[in-house]
């Protein structure tokens, strides 16, 4: 049945258009970017050497890793709290939790970043309110710094962190929890010593997804960082459009892909892909 000539022709005819499209419109230009990184402005490994020596590039890499780490910890913890209710709450609680997760998920990243500007800026909701009750006299600096970037990114990434956690929590056998309670374990103790360890694969998966997403994040840091807390993605943009240095922009892109690829390989050794969605 399988492998006759006409079958192979049929498969090839159906699969070829998309494969051809992605080879021409994605794989080939990506090789072009790799070529840029080795040839612009002069052929050689100069751009990669610059990556290791340039202070600005180094500080951006370190800032990106730091922000990504903080965002990962906060997002996974927050996502855990709401996922518990989404998966195990009463029907009404579950409906409300689902609404709170899915509405932000479907709203564009720009609208969400703008919402944080409206809340956190000098003339925004929080500063206006704190000043009107006389708690502060000068507005607090809540955006155009790393704090704003971390808040905005955490907000964006919580829904993504929820899905692997929900999948892990749905698949665990709740009789174990009842057994622990029946044997006299307190609610707290059951949660920390039985429930959390049993969702470990979900925690790892969700942390990896959030971390990988944070590394290449562009829009939220650019809006909420206001140019003062530049991350890798914005640095690539600046190198390509503001100080035309395509070689360096391309080299940073290549390094980012290699780094993310290595992280993903590590992830798939520990978590099965089906646990990620």
């Amino acid at each position: 049945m399988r492998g006759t000539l006409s079958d192979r022709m049929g498969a090839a005819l159906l699969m070829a258009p998309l494969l051809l499209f992605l080879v021409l419109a994605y794989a080939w230009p990506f090789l072009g970017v790799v070529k840029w990184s080795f040839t612009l402005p002069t052929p050689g490994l100069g751009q990669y050497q610059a990556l290791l020596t340039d202070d600005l590039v180094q500080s951006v890499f370190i800032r990106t890793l730091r922000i990504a780490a903080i965002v990962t910890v906060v997002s996974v913890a927050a996502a855990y709290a709401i996922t518990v209710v989404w998966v195990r709450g009463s029907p009404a609680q579950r409906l409300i939790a689902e609404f709170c997760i899915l509405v932000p998920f479907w709203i564009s990243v720009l609208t969400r970043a703008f919402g944080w500007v409206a809340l956190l800026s000098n003339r925004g909701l929080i500063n206006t309110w704190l000043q009107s009750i006389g708690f502060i006299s000068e507005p607090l600096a809540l955006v155009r710094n790393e704090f704003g970037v971390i808040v905005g990114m955490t907000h964006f990434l919580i829904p993504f962190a929820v899905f692997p956690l929900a999948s892990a929590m749905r698949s665990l056998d709740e009789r174990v929890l009842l057994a622990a309670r029946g044997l006299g374990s307190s609610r707290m103790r059951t949660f920390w010593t039985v429930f959390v360890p049993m969702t470990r694969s979900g925690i790892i998966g969700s942390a990896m997804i959030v971390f990988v997403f944070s590394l290449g994040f562009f829009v939220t840091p650019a809006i909420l960082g206001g140019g003062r807390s530049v991350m890798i993605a914005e640095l690539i943009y600046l190198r390509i459009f503001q100080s035309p240095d395509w070689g360096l922009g391309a080299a940073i892109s290549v390094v980012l892909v290699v780094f993310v690829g290595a992280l993903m390989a590590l992830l798939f050794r520990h978590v099965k892909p089906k646990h990620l969605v």
Partner: protein
Amino acid sequence: MPTYRPGPVSLILAVLVALFLLLPLLAVIPVSLTPSRMLAMPTGELSLRHYRSLIEDPRWLQSILLSVRIGVVSSAISTVLALCFSLGVWMFQPRFTATLVGFVLLPMVVPPVVSAVTLYFLLTSISRVSSFFGYDTWLGVAMAHSVMTVPFATVLILVSLSQLDRRIDLAARGLGASVWERATRVIMPNIKFGIVTAALLSFVLSWEEIGVTLFITSVNAITLPRLMWMGLRDNIDPAIAALSVILIIITVLVLAVRSFVVRLRRGIEPL
């Protein structure tokens, strides 16, 4: 039905997270009603001037129409390509399927900024030969969006194919149906929900795409997110707040209707 319910501490923490998630969406409402020309909280008087400027300023309407056109074209391209590819995978189960599917999913996994640089390279290269299809043209943007959305469309169609009973295809084959008849009259009618979802998701992803669009447009192909971006970077235009409120309301309505329909289909009493 879980019988082990979250306790009071879990509930309080979840409420805090829920507030955090909803707060920025609610914050745009008062800003959109400010009478001021700049971003500010309304003090006393409310005004609809920013909603009016959405209608009166032709740039908003133009960019909305452009975004719709790009969304429709790129969604059509990515749905058709994804459908053919998935049918090939499902009907013929060729060797190297896992590798080929992995390749197709790359634009979804690679950091968007790297895809953006890649598509910038592609479109600037095309621009050297053709001026209506390349950097900063609507066709170029539509093609770039197809690259970015096709993995999502493929995943959705492959998932709905995986739930299809192979025996109906075997029966059609045994009765002498050609490949074309099997695909169009047996398989596709059974996965039409998946195909429509793939097309809708591709449209939505293109409609709100900004990361790649920023790299491949400058002054001509100003999509709606691109126009919002320009208003957000320079001095913040409260018209964006008005637009955001409208987009949020549409999202909430669509999700409410969807959840209502899903509940009806499952036979649960809709709330």
